[in-house]
């Protein structure tokens, strides 16, 4: 009985010790933004590999999601004779929900997994140790620029996803199914509110940017430095990111409605 209690106590203490270390590392990384901003070259390099190189998958996916929304939305709306509202349906679904969420999920799969694998392999090949011994702090040199670039990239990618999606919805709704072009755009303009809809979407994608990029760099930094360890860390990045993004999405939506 006492053993059981002792074990419970030990596990609890270990859990909080680990949590404390994780939070401390996060704070250290945020504090390292200062010195990193003095060296914009490090950030642009990461913006390219995290952001620019994720654009293709984001744009193609956004286009198809928008087309599907156009199709599904039209089929439902036409029953009520409200197909002119298609623009609003497509835009609101994208800007408020699908843009931030699907972008975050795709980002975790494309850039997040790559970040974890990159940092994990740097650890496995002693590059991180090497940096430390060259008196270069890996938190400042490796983690901070990647986190910063991720936080900037995500809202931009989500905006791109939504914009391309709206165009996809337009192609299907207006060009293919014959919804009036004027109503598609004007209703969208009238009903999509800047503060309520667009800003909320941007806040969401900003939060998702922090969370998914942090999970990715943290998992890479803390992984067991073997091929199996890196592979597990990469899997964890994608799984945790997906779960946290979907959970947080509900929370943020509830808070912001």
């Amino acid at each position, binding site marked *: 009985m006492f053993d059981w209690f002792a074990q419970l106590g030990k596990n609890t203490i270990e859990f909080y010790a680990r949590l404390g270390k994780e939070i401390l590392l996060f704070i250290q990384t945020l504090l390292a933004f200062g010195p990193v901003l003095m060296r914009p070259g490090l950030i642009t390099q990461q913006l390219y590999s995290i952001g620019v190189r994720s654009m293709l998958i984001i744009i193609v996916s956004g286009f198809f999601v928008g087309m599907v929304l156009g199709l599904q939305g039209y089929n439902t709306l036409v029953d009520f004779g409200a197909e002119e509202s298609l623009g609003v349906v497509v835009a609101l679904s994208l800007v408020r929900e699908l843009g931030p969420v699907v972008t975050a999920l795709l980002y975790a799969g494309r850039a997040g997994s790559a970040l974890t694998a990159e940092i994990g392999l740097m650890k496995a090949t002693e590059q991180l140790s090497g940096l*430390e011994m060259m008196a270069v702090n890996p938190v400042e040199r490796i983690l901070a620029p990647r986190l910063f670039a991720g936080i900037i990239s995500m809202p931009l990618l989500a905006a791109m996803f939504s914009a391309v999606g709206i165009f996809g919805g337009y192609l299907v709704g207006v060009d293919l199914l014959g919804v009036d072009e004027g109503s598609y755009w004007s209703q969208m303009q009238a009903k999509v509110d800047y503060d309520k809809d667009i800003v909320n979407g941007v806040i969401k994608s900003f939060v998702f940017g922090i969370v998914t990029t942090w999970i990715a760099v943290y998992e890479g930094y803390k992984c067991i430095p073997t091929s199996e360890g890196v592979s597990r860390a990469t899997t964890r990045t994608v799984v945790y990111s997906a779960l946290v993004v979907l959970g947080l999405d509900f929370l943020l939506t509830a808070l912001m409605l």
Partner: protein
Amino acid sequence: MPEIDNNLVRIRDLHFSRGHSKIFNGIDIDIPKGKITAIMGPSGTGKTTLLKLIGGQLKPQRGTVFFHGEDIPSMKTKKLYEVRKKMGMLFQSGALLTDMSVFDNIAFPMREHTELPEVMIRDMVLMKLQAVGLRGARDLNPSQLSGGMARRVALARAIALDPEMILYDEPFTGQDPISMGALVELIRSMNDALELTSVIVSHDIHETLAIADKIYIISQGKVVGHGSPQEMNQSDSPWINQFVHGEADGPVPFHYPACSYKDDILQGV
């Protein structure tokens, strides 16, 4: 604590364990300035761990590691990074940054820590590369280098900031005889020419005995012997004998601890 005699590093009563396994159980080591000190011992005795303890990458549970009279484990991060600029480390894998060319790898510590103009950095990088014989390989990527070349590039990078001490982690492992000879020669000549202090962690007896001034043999968490290469060769300690002469069995057992062989076999019947 004041700096004592001519030891650059003084390790006292060092205890370190990982989980339940004790790696060091109270070891004392002195690393004299300007000399090559070799730390030897069978695989898995924590030789690399010892280098990480000297470099402050790991913290011991007990004991002190003095570098220039200052205790490394109790240093704050900022101070530790300052001290590390006086150390160079050659990793077993080379630990070259794979997204940079050979030239940029060697320029890296200079660009990070100095404000030198690019022209001067170029000259210094070429000098370091010339010292290791790889000036012609400056534009190659680390993936295009052979193991021996990668280690020489890493060596050039380790001396980039003109450190006082270089820590070598298994420099001879997996080298062909030619690169091995080149490395042995380089380590010795650089130590003397640049007035460095070198610490070599290795289990390659012949090469290490050939260049070391002082040798420590570690086994099962303790220092089992130390002295000059001659003293090691002539020692009558069974530990040292087994290691120096490469005997499969002795105080360091050939078998990993297990229950009796007979019992184990009969259990399956």
